[in-house]
């Protein structure tokens, strides 16, 4: 710095620095501006509707926005969303955390590096391609396994699980590797087997980080649209079996927004769904963030 300052006139340096500093500051603040703008935009269109109809929306399972009179029950959509997310976690959490443990504790350096590349590649597959996989591959497969309809909640859940795996694996691995080496050495020195070390020492030590990975995975699942629209069968109903088709909040917005008359009730109701989704993912991310901070503090 001193050398540069000597070579240039001081006022020039100060001006450049001022401009660049301003630009960087603007970039930093822009995230907040965008979030606020999105919040205002979605809120403006849907909040009135949400407040007017919040009770009938939450108690009815009938989503018929184009019927006369229209019914805006979202219970089945909410259940459909939770159903898919919950089912997908049943697959992705055990598999994802197990791969994270393998990558961080058992894999050789070479295996780890190549596996991480593959996992990251998995994350790069666009969601519409995942939807395609649901329709073209899982659909007939599930029918062979005894499902009446191949496009169902299970199909959507598997697709979601595959989509969230990369996130779980890389965040989980980070969390495990962040555990100090001395913990491992101490456990081994105490005569613990490697399995005991992972299960009794590493898992509790990395608990918060692993929880963050799962929570961010949940957030990703809730917000996913295209893949679930294609794979879940898109039927408004409370599922009673894993083979039942379901419909999610996101898929409903995607399928219907194109037609809804701007400013009409149907349009507003879709924005109300958007507010709901926004709120849920916000809460999930917020909890994840808090958990992460707690981990850093401890």
């Amino acid at each position, binding site marked *: 710095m001193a050398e540069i300052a000597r070579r240039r006139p001081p006022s020039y340096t100060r001006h450049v620095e001022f401009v660049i500093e301003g630009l960087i500051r603007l970039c930093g603040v822009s995230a907040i501006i965008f979030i606020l703008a999105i919040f205002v935009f979605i809120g403006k269109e849907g909040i009135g509707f949400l407040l007017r109809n919040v009770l009938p929306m939450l108690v009815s399972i009938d989503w018929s926005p184009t019927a*006369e009179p229209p019914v805006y029950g979202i219970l089945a959509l909410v259940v459909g969303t939770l159903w898919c997310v919950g089912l997908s976690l049943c697959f992705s959490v055990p598999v994802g955390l197990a791969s994270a443990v393998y990558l961080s504790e058992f894999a050789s350096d070479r295996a780890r590096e190549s596996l991480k590349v593959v996992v990251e590649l998995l994350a790069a597959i666009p969601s519409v391609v995942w939807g395609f996989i649901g329709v073209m591959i899982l*659909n007939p497969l599930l029918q062979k396994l*005894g499902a*009446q309809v*191949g496009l169902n909640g299970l199909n959507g859940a598997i697709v979601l699980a595959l989509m969230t795996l990369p996130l779980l694996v890389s965040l989980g691995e980070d969390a495990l590797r962040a555990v100090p080496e001395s913990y491992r050495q101490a456990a081994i020195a105490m005569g613990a087997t490697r399995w005991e070390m992972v299960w009794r020492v590493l898992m509790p030590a990395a608990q918060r980080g692993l929880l963050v990975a799962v929570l961010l995975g949940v957030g990703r699942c809730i917000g996913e649209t295209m893949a679930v629209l294609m794979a879940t069968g*898109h039927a408004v109903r409370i599922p009673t079996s894993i083979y039942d088709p379901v419909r999610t909040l996101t898929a409903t917005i995607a399928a219907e927004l*194109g*037609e809804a008359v701007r400013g009409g009730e149907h349009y507003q109701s879709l924005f109300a769904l958007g507010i709901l989704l926004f709120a849920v993912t916000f809460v999930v991310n917020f909890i994840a963030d808090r958990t992460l901070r707690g981990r850093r503090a401890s």
Partner: protein
Amino acid sequence: MTRVLFLSLLATTACSRPDKNGGEADASRPVVLQAKGSDTMVNLIQRLSEEYAKVSPRTVVAVTGGGSGTGIKAIIDGTTDMAASSRAMKDEEKAQAEGKGIHPVETTIAFDGLSIYVHKDNPMTQVDFDTLKLIFGSEGTAAHWKDVGVTMDCGNGDDAIVKVGRQNNSGTYEYFKEHVLGTEGKFTSTMDQSGTQQVLDVVGTTKCAIGYGGMGYSNPGAKHLCLAKGKTDACVEPIEQNVLSGNYPFSRALFIYTNGAPSGAVKEFLDWSLSAAADKVVAEAGFVPTPKSGAAPAGG
């Protein structure tokens, strides 16, 4: 899920509105017409525009789907030259258009018969409106094939009916609802697909499924049912002459809406589409051409 089928990606901005309506434009420039709306009609207009390009190479029709509601919305907003709709405009939509200074004019471009599809292994050969109402209505009582007198095994001894339909911005959805369930009627939970071909694909691969859609579509795994009005009426096959004769109980007109009476390039395109020269194209797309004698068929 909007299906976008551009005939050509020629610069849409290259021509201004007077070009399309005034007609007397620079002859070397392509005239791009926008046609937006019904997913049922996407294939039809696409084929018409391809054939029309041979007659009038200067005119390019850019076809976009999205559903009849989407097309009508676009004509109200003034963002398309032609709105394709498989249902008539609702009064409130007309009022909305007039409010924006748009005067929608309706042209019937073809007729469509709505078919009921089931899986090819389904022993059912015919169906009537009452049965359809039992299956698809929210107050219908038919949840299993045995409820409508059909013996089926969809695996594991189960015979639950898998009901496949269209999403609620589709003209086909509206049309089916109105004619089977009544204007006040409501659908039971169906698997809502975003296109007729998707409905057929699900029905063709799902043994216990039943669905509805344009009669021009097909899938090797699915079959079209013979349709009767009431339980005691004779059933009518969903084929062209039955639609034209007015015997098929489930046929409808397909409309093109324009702002004001069609003029310029739009009029030329529509005139050609309604001429005898286009009949073959319409039939190949799976629809029924308008009768040239001028007598409209009386449909369901």
